[in-house]
C-alpha cells in the first residue's frame, strides 16, 4: 500500500492532539480569570449621570460629611440617595444659575425625580445592610474606596460573594474605631491585626460561623 500521510503528519498529529488538550485547559482557566476581572465585576467604570455630581468636590474639597446626603446609612439597610431638596439646600443660593445644575432645579420645580444611574450594583439575591456594617466598625472607604478622590464615582471593590466572605471570615483587617468610620483617608495602622482583634471584641462581632451562615445575607 502507499503512504496515506506525509511524514510531517507524525509531528502535526501529535502537536494538534496536545494543542487540543492545552487550549481546552487554557479556555477553562480563562473563563475563571475573566469572571473575576473588573470587566465582569464592573469595577472602575464611571457612569454618565444626569448631573455630573463630583464626590471629589463635595467630599474631598468641601469636606461635607457622608451622612449629610446619605442620611439613613447608620439606621437603615440603605445609605439613601438624597432627595433633590437636599441639593437645593445649598444650590438654591450657591451656583443657583449655572447650567449644569439645571436638571436639579428642574426636578425641584417639576417634582420629577432625578434619575441617577446605579453605580454599585450588588449581586442579586443578597440583602446588604449598610447600618450594621457602619455600626460594627466597617468604614465607608473599606468597600467604596477613596470616594473623596472620585470626580465621578465608580465601583472600587469587586462586590463578589468571595470578596464579602473574605471580610466576614476575618473582619479584623478592616475594623476601625467608631470615630474613623467616615474618614475617607483611613489607612490601616501597622498593628491592625491586634487592633482589629480588640475592636472585634468591643463591637461584639459574631463568630465566623454565624457571619458566614447563608441566611446572614440571603433570604
Amino acid at each position, binding site marked *: 500500500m502507499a503512504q496515506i500521510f506525509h511524514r510531517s503528519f507524525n509531528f502535526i498529529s501529535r502537536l494538534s492532539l496536545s494543542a487540543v488538550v492545552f487550549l481546552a485547559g487554557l479556555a477553562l482557566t480563562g473563563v475563571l480569570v475573566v469572571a473575576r476581572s473588573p470587566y465582569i465585576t464592573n469595577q472602575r467604570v464611571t457612569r454618565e449621570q444626569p448631573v455630573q455630581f463630583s464626590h471629589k468636590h463635595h467630599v474631598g474639597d468641601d469636606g461635607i460629611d457622608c451622612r449629610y446626603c446619605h442620611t439613613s446609612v447608620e439606621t437603615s439597610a440603605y445609605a439613601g440617595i438624597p432627595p433633590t431638596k437636599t441639593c437645593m439646600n445649598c444650590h438654591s443660593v450657591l451656583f443657583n444659575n449655572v447650567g449644569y445644575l439645571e436638571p436639579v432645579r428642574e426636578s425641584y420645580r417639576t417634582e420629577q425625580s432625578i434619575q441617577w444611574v446605579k453605580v454599585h450594583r450588588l449581586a442579586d439575591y443578597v440583602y446588604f445592610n449598610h447600618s450594621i456594617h457602619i455600626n460594627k466598625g466597617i468604614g465607608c472607604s473599606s468597600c467604596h474606596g477613596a470616594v473623596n478622590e472620585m470626580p465621578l464615582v465608580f465601583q472600587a471593590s469587586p462586590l463578589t460573594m*468571595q470578596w464579602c466572605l473574605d471580610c466576614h471570615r476575618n473582619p479584623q483587617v478592616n475594623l476601625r474605631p467608631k470615630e474613623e468610620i467616615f474618614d475617607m483617608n483611613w489607612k490601616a495602622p501597622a498593628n491592625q491585626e491586634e487592633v482589629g482583634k480588640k475592636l472585634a471584641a468591643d463591637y461584639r462581632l459574631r463568630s465566623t460561623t454565624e457571619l458566614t451562615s447563608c441566611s446572614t445575607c440571603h433570604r
Partner: protein
Amino acid sequence: MSTTPPPGDLPEIRRLDPVLEPGHTYASVTDKIAAVVLTQPPTTGWIVGFAMSFIVVMVLFISLSWLIIKGVGIWGINIPIGWGFAIVNFVWWIGIGHAGTLISAILFLLNQKWRTSINRFAEAMTLFAVACAGIFPLIHTGRPWMAYYMMPYPSTMGIWPQFRSPLIWDVFAVSTYGTVSLLFWFVGLLPDLATLRDRAKNRTQQVIYGMLSMGWRGSAHHWHRYQSAYLLLAGLATPLVLSVHTVVSFDFAVAIVPGWHTTIFPPYFVAGAIYSGFAMVLTLAIPLRKAYGLEDFITMRHLDNMAKVMLATGLIVAYGYFIEFFMAFYSNNKFDVFLAQQRLHGPYSHFYYALILCNILTPQLLWFEKMRRNVAVLFVMSLVVNTGMWLERFVIVVISLTRDFMPSAWGRYSPTFWDYSTFIGTIGLFVMLIFLFVRVLPAIAIAEMRELVHEQSDEEK
C-alpha cells in the same frame, strides 16, 4: 493465553456449539466483517430503520426544547412525587449499559472466549446507553442551565458542591463510567481501525480511518503494550461497573424514604443492571446477526450463554424482591411494612404484579434448553425483561414517594405526554446511534476473531 482446555472438559467443550463456526481463515473473517463497513451499500432496511429512529430523535429534541421553555412542570411530577420518569429512565439506561462493560471486562478477565464476537457492539451499546442516561440527571433539574453548580470549580461565590449528596456521587460515577467505557472501546478498536485503513478503497475512508487508527502497525511492541493496557483497563472497569450502579442505588438507599432506605439495594441494583443489560444485548444481537449474516460469529453458543446469565441474574433480582419484603416484616418497621402492603394493594399494585410477571415468572422458561435455543423466544424474552426492569425502577421511585411518612401529604403520580415523549425520544436516540455504529465501525472485534481462528486451528492440531 493458553487455549488447550484441561482434559476433563474436552468432551464437554466438544458437545457445545463452537464460538466460531469452523472453516474460517484470517482473511475470511476480516473480509466478512470489514465488508459490512467498507463495501456493502446500506440496505433499505438500514435506511428505513435509521430514518425512523431519526424522526424519534426529533421528538426528543422537541420535548427537551419545550421542557426548557416551560420548566419541569410539564411533567407529571409534583409534591410528594418529586421524581418521575426522568429518574426511572436514568436508572434504566444506566443499568442497560452495564452488560457491555461486563462482557468486555469481566468475561475477558475470566478468559471467556465466547465474549469475543459480542463485546464490540456490547460496548457500543454501553456508550449509547450511558449517553441516553446522561441526559436525564441534567434535564430533570428545575434549572438545567445552572447544573454546572454540581461541578467543583473555583467560583467567584467561593462555594462548592455538597459531597455528601448521592447526586454528586452520581455526577462523578456516571462521567467516569462514560469516559472509561469510551477509552476501553477505543483501545479495542485501534487494530480494527488499522485494518479498515488498510483495506479502505477510497481516499476519504483511508484518511478518516488512518487518523483514527493513529498509525497502528500491529508491531510486536505495539501488541505487547496494548495487551497490558487492555488487561489493566479490564481490571479497572470491573470494579467501576459494580460501583456505578451501587452509587445509583445510593440515590435511593441513602435517602430515608420508606422503600428506598434499604441495604439490599446495591447488590440487587447491580444484578438488575446486568440482567437488563444482557436482555438488551440479545435484543440487539439477534436482529444484527440475521441482518448481516453473522450467524457464524454470533453462534447459538453465545445466545445460550447470555440466556443463562439472564437466568442467573434474574434469580438474584428475584431474591432481592423477596428480601425487601422479608426485611420489611422482619424489622416490623411500620413505615416499611405499610409500604410493602402498598406495593401489593396500593393504587400502583398492578405495576408491581406486572413487574413480578416480567422479571421473575417469565424468565423461568430459560431453565429449558429448548427455550434458550429458540431465537424467537429469546428475542421476545429479552424485550419482556427490559420492560420488567423499567417497571422495577418505576415501582421503586414512584410507589415509595406516593406513600411516605406524612399521610396528609400522600399523593399520586401520572405521567404526561411529555414524560412519554422524552422517554421514547431517548430510545430513538439509542437506536439511531446503534444504526450509525454498525455502518461506520466493525460490529465485531476483527483482530480478536483472527486470534480465535488461530486458536481454533491450534485446537484442531
